[in-house]
């Protein structure tokens, strides 16, 4: 009997180990991460490019988030580092900013991706540490996507690196892009991190009465500072506001569980696109909406991504011809 129980536990542990290995260590194609690299890199470039307009005011040597204040906000922690703390001359300050932008653009285009990826995430974190008081969800998602993409060979496809490598080997050579475990690791980390984001966002909402009484969406619609498209006509449809509120809450809370089964995944991903683009359109946070959709791409199988890209390329070629 005991032997039977022992082997049962052993079998169960073996199954777990097998599942664990299959989840983390089966190599994958970098197709999806390559597309995510392009989107995240462009978003990093835009996000930091916009800082150029107010760089001195916000991050400057004597700006609102100058070194002393940034240090105090960060509790003088040696781990909350920022390169701005090492700069004390305007020329270096601006030079570094333009260098950071160039690095992010290089990452988006997949040029020297290994180096530009690591530098991009370091710069993104550095800016966020400097001006923490002006950051929001966009920067949080930007940084964690860049972090996981930087550890993966996401520059192996759809990149200048792969184009140049192919050119170097000759036009007729069919370059082989091996699947990689690092792609799987990065993909899984993005997926799990995204589930944590939705889980806590959902659980946080469960503390608010407005999410229970079905009026929270009204709070978002009626915020004058957020509003870009007027949806206040919905005030005549309070039950519809209830339905939208409760549906959004149910979707967010269930996301970490329902996005994994193949049957429910497409529905939850489509809802993610609708919710985030809706927030982008109606509340003026298009950058945040887009980066959340980009993060959700991690759940798209590389095979589907490749097929989609190949389809787009062949259509474009047909049009050109």
């Amino acid at each position, binding site marked *: 009997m005991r032997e039977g129980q022992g082997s049962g536990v052993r079998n169960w542990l073996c199954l777990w180990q097998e599942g664990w290995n*299959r989840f*983390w*260590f*089966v*190599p994958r*194609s970098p197709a999806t991460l390559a597309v995510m690299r392009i989107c995240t890199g462009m978003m990093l470039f*835009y*996000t930091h490019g*916009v800082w150029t307009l*107010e760089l001195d*005011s916000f991050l400057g040597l*004597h*700006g*609102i988030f*100058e070194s*002393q*204040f940034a240090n105090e906000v*960060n509790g003088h*922690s040696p*781990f909350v*580092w920022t390169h701005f703390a090492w700069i004390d001359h305007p020329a270096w300050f601006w030079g570094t900013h333009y260098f950071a932008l160039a690095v992010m653009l290089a990452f988006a285009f997949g040029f020297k991706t290994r180096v530009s990826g690591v530098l991009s995430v370091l710069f993104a974190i550095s800016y966020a540490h400097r*001006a923490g*008081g002006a*950051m*929001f*969800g*966009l920067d*949080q998602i930007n940084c*964690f996507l860049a972090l996981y993409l930087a550890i993966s060979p996401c520059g192996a*496809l759809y990149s200048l690196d792969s184009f140049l490598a192919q050119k170097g080997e000759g036009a007729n050579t069919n*370059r*082989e892009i*091996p*699947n*990689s475990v690092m792609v799987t*690791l990065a993909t899984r*980390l993005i997926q799990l991190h995204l589930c*944590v984001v939705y889980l*806590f*966002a959902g659980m*946080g*909402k469960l*503390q*608010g009465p407005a*999410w229970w009484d079905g009026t*929270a969406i009204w*709070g*978002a619609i*009626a915020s*004058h*500072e957020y*509003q870009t498209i007027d949806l206040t006509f919905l*005030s*005549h449809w*309070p039950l519809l506001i209830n339905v939208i509120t409760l549906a959004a809450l149910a979707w967010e809370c269930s996301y970490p569980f329902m996005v994994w089964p193949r049957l429910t995944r497409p529905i939850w991903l489509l809802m993610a696109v609708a919710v985030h683009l809706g927030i982008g359109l109606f509340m003026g946070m*298009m*950058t945040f909406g887009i980066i959340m959709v980009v993060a959700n791409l991690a759940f798209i199988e*590389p*095979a589907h991504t*490749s097929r989609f890209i190949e389809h787009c390329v062949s259509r474009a070629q047909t049009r050109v011809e």
Partner: protein
Amino acid sequence: MARHKPNSAIPIPDVSRGVPPAAEAAGVVAWSGTKRFWVSVALLLHLACVIIAPMAVVDPRSDIASLLHQPVSPWTRGLFLDHGYRFFAPEPGPSHIVEYEVFRADGSSVKGHFPDRDQHWPRLLYHRWFMLSETVFQHASMTLDEKQLKEWESEVQSEIKSLVDSDDVRNADRVQFDYQRAMQDHQRAQSLLRQLVQQIKQDLLKRHNGVSIKMRLATRVIPSLYDVARGRKLDDPRYLPDEAAIELGEGSRVTPEVEAIAPLEPVPSAAASGGGE
């Protein structure tokens, strides 16, 4: 375009050529057992950090989450992973606007506010200013004036005394600990608010070529659904009530050299102005 092919060293099905996503189902695992073990340990530690951080950085938080967060905070803070992810949670609240008036040497003045959608473009820049005004509010809402501080202290002391009198030393210690932690938060918020407001004033003075400035933090409450259904607009001044505004004081322009030796101006607390949450 480069073609994907499985790594020749490992028999992995090709997932890139329209074959159903079968790599996982095939269960072909790369890397040696030792390498997988150490990478698994690192993954578990990192994922633990990712989960602990949102439990520990936002109130309400448990002692266990705070305790677990301490050793991992260098990692989570260093990589900018220390977030609560409470988007529109616990619920969408009022927004906060910094209103200011800058006075110039020639006697003229200019009024403004941020965030200001007419002035701050593109939208991402507007959001930066919006987050700045929300940060000002966040610090302001955590500060108390002298009178309230004294009242709070005497309340806590009498609670501790009654607990000690009833031999409940454990809870008395707990109340004392909570009080000290809240007091530290208050002092930190007060110091940060003072510095932040000072920096914003200096920036606005420089921007508008002013010599002095007056600033306050206004709160725009969310209008009720029924008010709006009856035709009231979102920018109705009634939703910016004076009694909810927090005075952020006056200030004058200082050069960086003078700033180094001059003490920062005190900022009236949120509670003293009748605002805050």
